[in-house]
């Protein structure tokens, strides 16, 4: 074989190898999703005595590597534990502690005792002080401090704060999960199209993304909140409108990430190979490109969960999100905007939901940060 022939044969081999590496990449990303399945696989492997070399090698699949790196960080474990506990608290909690309902008032009554000192002038001209005690019988047991009956006390409407925290978690967590899911779908489709087709498609989509990222998000959310008010939407339907608005104002970031990644991946050799194999556009985008964007996407989704909770809570706090009698964590804090005495004297009404918001957002941020480090192939620790 002379030099030229050798060169040729090497060249002809190249597309083949790149196809393989391309598939490998796609599988790597998919493995990340299949964390649960991976865990089961490794649990069974070490129990067998004569493990073939291949099986040993398999325990360090890219997915496993990511998992290993994820669990090495203490903060990610803390975050994961916190989020599991919060989900149990919100979704299983109301089933176990069902003494009080979400909007059930404690109508056991309450005596409100007001004492005041009154100065009375006696017939002989001297003055003496009389303590006047007024006892008012209230119908509902409102603003009761924490006790065995109400673990975190009751709010102004006489509703159990502990119970409402659990129901509030359901709404807040669900809203953020659904919103981030929808945002991702919208972002992946639009970002994918922009990145893959380029040219005018890219131009049009990216200008729309530009517009949406320059929009003042929070004021527009407020505007949208008062728009829902003015349309007279029913309380239970309101949540769906909220989700739609949060999604519409939030997808631009995801689209930008996806587009940036795809622009880079599109030029990779394995895509040329996919082209050469005559794969369809749809298949190329969704089987070969999107899976490779997944690492970044998963990280931005987890971090997005936290920020969506914050947006929803802020909206509800200003009474433009979820409205009473429905409980959301932000809604439960709303009372301090209208009643300063609750802010000053009844911490148990507004502090627990606030702490829960912090915990939830913190947990998502810890997990997102851990995933970012774990998924970054350049990180060697």
């Amino acid at each position, binding site marked *: 074989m002379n030099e030229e022939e050798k060169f040729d044969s090497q060249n002809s081999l190249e597309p083949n190898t790149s196809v393989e590496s391309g598939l490998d990449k796609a599988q790597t990303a998919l493995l990340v999703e299949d964390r649960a399945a991976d865990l089961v696989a490794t649990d069974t492997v070490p129990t067998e005595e004569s493990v073939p070399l291949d099986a040993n090698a398999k325990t360090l699949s890219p997915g496993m590597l990511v998992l290993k790196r994820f669990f090495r960080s203490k*903060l990610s474990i803390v975050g994961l534990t916190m989020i599991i506990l919060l989900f149990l608290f919100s979704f299983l909690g109301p089933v176990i502690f069902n003494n009080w309902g979400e909007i059930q008032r404690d109508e056991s009554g309450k005596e409100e005792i007001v004492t005041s000192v009154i100065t009375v002038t006696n017939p002989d001209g001297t003055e003496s002080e009389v303590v006047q005690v007024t006892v008012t019988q209230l119908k509902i047991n409102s603003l009761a401090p924490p006790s065995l009956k109400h673990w975190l006390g009751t709010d102004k409407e006489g509703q159990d704060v502990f119970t409402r925290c659990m129901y509030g978690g359901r709404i807040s967590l669900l809203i953020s999960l659904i919103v981030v899911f929808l945002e991702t779908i919208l972002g992946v489709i639009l970002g994918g199209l922009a990145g893959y087709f380029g040219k005018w498609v890219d131009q049009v989509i990216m*200008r*729309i993304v*530009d*517009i949406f990222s*320059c*929009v*003042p998000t*929070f*004021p*527009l959310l*407020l*505007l*949208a909140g*008062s*728009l829902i008010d*003015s*349309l007279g939407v029913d309380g239970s339907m309101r949540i769906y409108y909220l989700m739609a608005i949060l999604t519409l104002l939030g997808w631009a970031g995801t689209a930008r990430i996806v587009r940036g990644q795809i622009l880079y991946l599109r030029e990779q050799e394995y895509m040329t190979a996919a082209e050469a194999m005559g794969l369809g556009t749809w298949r190329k985008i969704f089987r070969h490109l999107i899976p490779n964007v997944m690492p970044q996407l998963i990280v931005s989704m987890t971090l997005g969960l*936290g920020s969506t909770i*914050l947006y929803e*809570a*802020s909206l509800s*706090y*200003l009474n433009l999100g979820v409205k009473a009698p429905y409980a959301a964590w*932000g809604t439960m*804090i709303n009372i*301090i*905007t209208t009643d*300063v005495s609750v*802010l*000053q004297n009844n*911490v148990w009404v*507004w*502090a627990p939901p*606030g702490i829960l*918001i*912090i915990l939830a*957002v*913190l947990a998502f*941020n*810890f997990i997102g*940060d851990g995933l970012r480090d774990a998924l970054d192939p350049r990180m060697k*620790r």
Partner: protein
Amino acid sequence: MFKYIVKRILLAILILLGVSLIIYTLVRLMPTDYVDGKFQSQVSQGTITVEQLQEIKALYGLSDNSFWGIIKGYFQWLGNLCRGRLGTSFKYRQPVAQVISQNMWTSFLIAFVAIIFEFLIAIPLGVTAATHQYGTRDYVVTVLTMIGISLPSFFFAAMLIKIFAVDLGWFPIQGMADASNTGGGGLTYFFDNIYHLILPIVTLVVINIGSLMRYTRTNTLEVLNADYIRTARAKGLKESKVIYKHAFRNTMIPLVTLLAGILPTLFSGAMIVEQVFSLPGIGNLAYQAMMEGDIPFVMGYNMFLAVLSVLGTLLSDIMYVVVDPRVKLA
């Protein structure tokens, strides 16, 4: 450079057009009787007459609700916008532009002081976290960062009020000045203002410092991995010289561009913090206006915010080229 700036400005105009379309659509989605309902009490009190209300609505093209009426209303509003006429606020009964320009300085003052503290605290902490990567200091900074990012501003502000204003009584609960202080000016008034602004500024600093610290840390890490740092170390320079002379300057590049991008947005007002502390800033005014259906003010304010953020991106992109000679314009 000139060509680049012109291109960017044209793009900015396109973006602003899009934003204006979104804002107008949202406002027009409101039912027609919404404004009437909101102003019912004012009309019945006689502070505003029905004719005045109709006149105002006609001015914004809010009275005609046919398809072409809406289109016409949009261009009418856009035309006024281009001529700098933001209209008259329903609530404050003053031209919107005037309300904004009078009150944005309060917001700017608070935000500006806060941003100075943020940079002063975040940069040293971010750099130490990066130079001691994976050490205790790094962990502490990371956790602090995370907590800062995760705090809901309204809740943190409420906690501060409860602890430091109500329980300890160190600071006033709300407002910009004592009721007894009628604003005669002078030093006492000034110090009273500062005294009232301490809690809001602390809130802003704690809420915003996290992302800045993380940004500094990431940038410093990136710089520390660069080849010229290895060269500096290979030359046998002292570690302090490597970090503070060679690395630090390059760390500052993205921070300066970030600062340029933030500067215009300091005028936009921190809506929630101002609302909790009831400060007379632009954010709180906008919130009140929004609650009362003051459509001209809300539309004007949102456009104002969009202009600020477009200006911010433009400034930071230009600064990027100015500060870093390695960057070539596309």
